[in-house]
């Protein structure tokens, strides 16, 4: 069969680079429900769980064991398990059921039960539930800050950029494990430049990460991985019991932590035990709560491609976030792995979370270029920043970010890179030149800077370890090298963390080191006109994107072309009698305040082309100023009625043009150029010729403009509106047409 043209185009679309799997419960390749998922059950005897989701205590694996011991509110369990899943799902969505009541009941539900509750919700219901159930009132956002060279100056500059944009957590990792201490130090410094209080993380192997944290070089951790089956958990070299110690170890040094789960990992490891992705993730979330973790990162982590390959996959990812919220934990809502090659699909993944709100919309927005992301490409990356800022503005929702001017960005990047260079020199870690700083400041990413000495970072990291540098050494060095503000900020951060308020659920520091958490900033959404609302100040920040222009700014270029031709009033327009005459009706502002059409031709040039076209066909143009209307149809019709031939041309200042005939209805023209931005001098000349041919009683072939793939309305409508406003200003209702002459 011959390939259909339509399919040829479809096959080349990015979405068809994505993999799609037939659901297969045997492999765990199924999103919301597998026939092998256990039925919810809970039997308690003598205050102990003796059966959990169909399994008796003697058969508990290490995950069941931990959930049964610590994860369930046994006082509520009987009541909660007796409610059917639809009843619980409705309570989650119902604005008349308080958040606290849902949290209380869900505390008594088993993993299989909560998964069943999720499975009856539609995506919109999940969003409704998220609006109510997320723990912190104010949404926030987290950034990935990494680069392929582990260049500390670039890490610092990018961390400073991230906090300038509004991220309140910044997370780094390494392509080369040995570099980690250097990355941690650079990130810590950069994250306190410009705006203090962002928390910083270095995500690496669990034991090394803990060691860096114990020395105060990081302030939170989130890569404490949980898995939904025992096999995968143990393959990850941990058990829930070791994770419990890890969880407490972080708290013992004042480090905020959350665990990471996220569906699909078990399928990737070939040990999903034939269960659905949702059920296994529900086990992870139950376990997170049981461990005493304050939060969970899930909903689009490393296994996201697996989840998105099956039916209902994206819905399952949203359910992951919601389960975390319903268990009253901080939701760091994933979106940190590129879900698709298709811009449409990846936007579709993030948008529901952005609209509903989460404690962190991304558990790693790639604040750096895609290629520099040492985690994996994020669902949104640095080249998507403008898109994200516009999305916030489009929906008037808070995704935690704000516009940054190039001048400010340069300033903070320079300060961060310079501070790190100074500290590295002061501590004997490395010597970076001023040229290197300059290169880093302007670089989009590591491909824009020379690789430098490949061993320098490793040596710096080794020295940090050899000296066992602590946060106090970094603070002292910043002070010695003249970076007092950053020294003070890091000391403040260290001091605040020892108070422990940031260990509570969903905690972040604001720019004044106030803790915003479930305790201090609880979500109070109870329906429309409640819960988080943008302050006027924040609204202005979201609205004020750098591309925004006033109508005055949009028409500023008109003045550059003022008086390039001169229009002179001749007389009140009279009815013409020459059968070769074609009147060109000019809109009210044309040649008064509007001088440049949307296609970039001046009005003088447009008129020259139209007139030339008329003359080539032996017709005579007459210019008539129509003052009483800005409607191009009426302008053309009025011109036609004044014209000796009965044919007229209507022309607006922005370039929209048409051919009219005196006996037609206003909207029924002969030929219309409606898409002014696409017009060319040639087309205006052809318009003149066709008008002349109509005047001579011929039937000319219509002018073919060829169509376009451009979003004309998106590109030009703001501009068109500003020009139309000028037309309206010049319009003089009731005033009669005037014949005018034009001179160059």
């Amino acid at each position, binding site marked *: 069969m011959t390939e259909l043209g339509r399919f040829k185009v479809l096959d080349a679309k990015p979405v068809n680079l994505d993999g799609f799997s037939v659901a297969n419960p045997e492999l765990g390749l199924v999103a919301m429900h597998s026939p092998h998922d256990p039925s919810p059950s809970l039997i308690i005897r003598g205050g102990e769980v003796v059966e959990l989701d169909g399994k008796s205590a003697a058969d*508990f*694996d*290490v995950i069941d*064991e931990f959930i049964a011991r*610590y*994860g369930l*509110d046994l006082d509520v369990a009987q009541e909660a398990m007796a409610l059917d899943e639809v009843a619980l799902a409705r309570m989650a969505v119902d604005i008349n059921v308080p958040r*606290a009541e849902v*949290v*209380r009941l869900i*505390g008594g539900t088993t993993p299989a039960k909560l998964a069943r509750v999720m499975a009856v919700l539609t995506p919109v219901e999940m969003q409704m539930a998220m609006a109510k159930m997320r723990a912190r009132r104010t949404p926030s956002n987290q950034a990935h800050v990494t680069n392929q060279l582990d260049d500390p100056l670039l890490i610092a500059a990018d961390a400073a950029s991230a906090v300038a944009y509004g991220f309140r957590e910044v997370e780094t990792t390494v392509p080369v494990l040995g570099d980690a201490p250097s990355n941690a130090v650079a990130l810590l410094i950069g994250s306190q430049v410009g705006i203090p209080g962002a928390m910083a993380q270095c995500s690496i192997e669990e*034991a090394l990460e*803990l060691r860096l944290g*114990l*020395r105060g070089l990081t302030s939170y951790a989130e890569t404490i991985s949980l898995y939904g089956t025992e096999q995968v958990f*143990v393959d990850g*070299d*941990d*058990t829930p*019991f*070791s994770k*419990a*110690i*890890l*969880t*407490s*170890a972080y*708290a*013992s*040094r004042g480090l905020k932590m959350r665990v990471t789960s996220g569906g699909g990992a078990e399928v990737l490891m070939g040990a999903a035990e034939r269960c659905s992705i949702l059920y296994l993730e529900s086990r992870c979330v139950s376990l997170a*709560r049981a*461990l*005493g*973790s*304050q939060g969970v990162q899930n909903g689009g982590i490393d296994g996201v491609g697996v989840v998105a390959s099956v039916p209902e996959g994206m819905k399952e990812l949203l359910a992951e976030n919601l389960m975390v919220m319903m268990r*009253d934990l901080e939701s760091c809502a994933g979106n940190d792995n590129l879900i698709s090659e298709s811009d449409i699909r990846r936007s579709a993944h993030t948008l529901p979370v952005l609209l509903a709100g989460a404690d962190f919309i991304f558990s790693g927005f790639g604040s750096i270029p895609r290629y520099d992301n040492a985690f994996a490409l994020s669902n949104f990356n640095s080249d998507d920043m403008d898109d994200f800022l516009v999305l916030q503005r489009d929906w008037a929702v808070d995704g935690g970010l704000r516009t940054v001017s190039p001048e400010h960005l340069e300033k903070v990047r320079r300060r961060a890179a310079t501070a790190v260079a100074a500290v590295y020199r002061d501590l004997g870690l490395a010597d970076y030149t001023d040229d290197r700083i300059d290169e880093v400041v302007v670089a989009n990413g590591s491909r824009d800077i020379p690789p430098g000495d490949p061993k320098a970072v490793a040596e710096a990291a080794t020295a940090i370890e050899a000296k*066992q540098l*602590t*946060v*106090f*050494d970094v*603070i*002292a060095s910043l*002070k*010695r090298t003249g970076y*007092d503000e950053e*020294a*003070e900020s890091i*000391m403040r951060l*260290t*001091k605040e963390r*020892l*108070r*422990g*308020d940031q*260990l*509570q*659920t969903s905690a972040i520091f604001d720019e004044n080191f106030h803790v915003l958490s*479930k*305790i201090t900033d609880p979500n109070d959404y109870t329906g429309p006109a409640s819960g988080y609302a943008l302050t006027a100040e924040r609204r202005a920040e979201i609205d004020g994107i750098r591309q925004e222009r006033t109508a005055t700014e949009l028409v500023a270029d008109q003045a550059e072309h003022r008086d390039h031709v001169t229009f002179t009033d001749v007389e009140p327009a009279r009815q013409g009698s020459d059968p070769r005459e074609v009147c060109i009706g000019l809109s009210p502002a044309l040649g008064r305040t509007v001088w440049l059409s949307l296609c970039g031709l001046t009005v003088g040039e447009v008129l020259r082309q139209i007139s030339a076209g008329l003359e080539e066909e032996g017709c005579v143009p007459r210019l008539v100023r129509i003052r009483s209307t800005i409607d191009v149809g009426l302008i053309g019709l009025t011109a036609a009625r004044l014209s000796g031939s009965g044919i007229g041309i209507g022309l607006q200042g922005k370039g929209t043009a048409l051919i009219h005939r005196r006996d037609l209805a206003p909207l029924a023209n002969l030929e219309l150029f409606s898409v002014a931005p696409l017009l060319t001098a040639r087309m205006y000349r052809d318009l003149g010729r066709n008008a002349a041919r109509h005047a001579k009683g011929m039937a000319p072939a219509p002018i073919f403009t060829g169509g376009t793939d451009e979003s004309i309305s998106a590109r030009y409508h703001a501009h068109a509106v500003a020009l139309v406003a000028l037309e309206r200003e010049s319009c003089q209702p009731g005033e009669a047409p005037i014949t005018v002459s034009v001179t160059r």
Partner: protein
Amino acid sequence: MTTEDQFTVENAVDGKLRLSDLRMDPATLAHQAAVAESGGNPQLAENFLRAAELATMDDEEVMGLYEALRPHRSSAEQLEALRVSLEGRGAMRCAELVGQAAVVYARRGLLR
């Protein structure tokens, strides 16, 4: 014990702050546990109380405890010895956790 007032840049420059100053005060963690409990999250409270026990240990001991609980690291005897030593120093919650782990590790084949 370093008090909050001593966390100054000057003291860092003068080398007066040490690694052990980064440990939480167990009383602070007990307070945060009470906050978590009254906020409806007894598991978070339990974590903070467990952390209060770890706050009195130096970094290497904490790392050692974590390592001992990783899969296939410890025999039943080693876990029992660890449990007893934790109990002996008053780290009752950590001791209990180790005791529970020993039972389930034996059942699931996760001992050394």
